């Protein structure tokens, strides 16, 4: 299943950081540079495996580390209702 952002969000990338406004919860989230890179990939709708492959390519890290980090990141995004 493809990952994609919650359709009701407004977000901007400013100085390499994503600022995500969830109007339903009146919450503003700020992502660091690495999380922002992952968010940008998710915004183009991507499968988890493809996300991990691209992040591994960009950050030259081990597959297991990337998959663990991305798994935790996706979990947090879901907890905050930032994903569809």
């Amino acid at each position, binding site marked *: 299943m493809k990952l994609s952002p919650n359709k009701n969000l407004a977000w*901007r990338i400013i100085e390499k950081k994503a600022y995500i*406004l969830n109007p339903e919860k009146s919450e503003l989230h700020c992502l660091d540079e690495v999380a922002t890179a992952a968010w940008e990939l998710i915004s183009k709708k991507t499968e988890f495996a493809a996300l991990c492959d691209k992040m591994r390519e960009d950050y030259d890290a081990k597959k297991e580390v990337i998959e663990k980090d991305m798994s935790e990141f996706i979990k947090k995004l879901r907890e905050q209702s930032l994903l569809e």
Partner: protein
Amino acid sequence: MIKNQPDLFSLKPDHAFLNVGLTKSGGLYASACSPKKPRIESRLNIALKRNLAANEGKRGFTDVCARISGRNVVFKRNDFYARINLDELTGKASVARNEYSVNSLLRVIFSWLAPQAGGLLMHSSGIKAGNKSFIFTGISGSGKSTIIKEIKKIHGGGRIDILSDEIVLVESSKYNKARAYGTPFWGELSGLRKENNRGNAGGSAAAKLFFLRKAPFFKIKPLGKAEAMTRMLPNVLYFLKNKAAADMIMSLALEIAGNIPCFELFFMPRMTKKQYEAITE
């Protein structure tokens, strides 16, 4: 400023037509008379109700519920209800027959109209010094009225140009600038409203925007655009909770943050003249 704001209770006892909007030169109005060529205007048929819950003082106020329903926007609280057609900007409202409820309804409607004309209503106080405005932003208890009182003391208690001690309208204007306008929405310093509204027609160039922090020291800390936008958003009055609204508010906040130098202002009671000069230089 609100021009020609009628005393609703002096019109027909239970009913009023109001034109609510922003003029071309800026500023809010709620008037039975309509300015020529307003920037944006909504014409409302307002019924003042004696029997809404707030009149009876039986319970506190609920949160404002705002939603899009077909081609209308609906604003609802236990003491008011408004339904406005999005295409024609005409609508009907019922509001409890007291000044607080009418004031609240107008705040909600202006907070919806202002972004459509490029402005944001912000929880801010503000002053005009020379030809420029200085805005002090923060939630309840952050010191919006306090800083106005401190500035007034520095002026020996004499008259200063106050935009508001509660809500200021800020808008992006041409050439990457921003303007600030007084509003009729005041807090504890509402006794000063009449003497100040006269002086604030048309607004003025916004020179600086400060995010307030009460502290045992005085410091002015510059903020970058992203940080300023992040601080601004929680202080914007807006009630619709959908993507289109969020996108609009975020764009405007970012634009304003880019057009006005923004700072965090740590301040304490008994402000000195030197500190005031540092704020307004």
